[in-house]
């Protein structure tokens, strides 16, 4: 079993990368791979339940939720980036089942994966 991390640093609205990261991650289950997704920088805006790219005609983030539940794909966000955007716990959509990692844990955390793909 190899561990694969898809990290996204780009904004959740108006660019495809968060949806592409999840599409990639869900594809990993066909092999003996264990994917996870990490939101850093502006990508953390995705976690607010009020973040809805579909309001401007883009693909919804929520389309990932049923697969996150089905596969139990772990989703992480960086604490300091959540704080920067003043994102409070009760604003986070529960479907992400979000795990928080702090900035000083990041190096060890990212190194714990066998392969890392950043979008």
């Amino acid at each position, binding site marked *: 079993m190899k561990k694969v991390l898809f990290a996204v640093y780009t904004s959740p609205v108006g660019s495809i990368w968060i949806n592409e990261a999840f599409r990639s991650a869900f594809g990993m289950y066909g092999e003996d791979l264990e994917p996870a997704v990490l939101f850093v920088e502006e990508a953390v805006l995705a976690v607010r*339940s009020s973040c809805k790219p579909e309001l*401007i005609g883009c693909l919804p983030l929520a389309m990932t939720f049923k697969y996150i539940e089905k596969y139990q794909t772990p989703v992480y966000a960086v604490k300091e980036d959540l704080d920067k955007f003043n994102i409070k716990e009760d604003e986070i959509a529960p479907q992400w089942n979000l795990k928080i990692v702090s900035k000083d844990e990041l190096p060890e955390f990212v190194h714990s994966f066998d392969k890392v793909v950043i979008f």
Partner: protein
Amino acid sequence: MALIIVKKSPSEKISEFLLNLALPQDKVLFVQDGVIFAACKNVKNLVKEGVELFALKEDFIARGFDEKDSEVTLVDYDGWAELIEKEEKVIS
């Protein structure tokens, strides 16, 4: 005067460049990831006095912000069109 359109996020150098260009009586409109500026407490200090700030409501709301979080005037696409009519020059 000019309408300056800022479409990139506060972390991008070009956004700072565009904000520096604004002269008093210019209007700055934040769109796309530029709307993140609208939620910054200090956004008014990033431009010269007399510069009017706006953000595109659709893009602000889609990114999960609440209307009341905005430090600047929110306009919809119709409002953007109106700004285009009023300002003779567009810098973007």
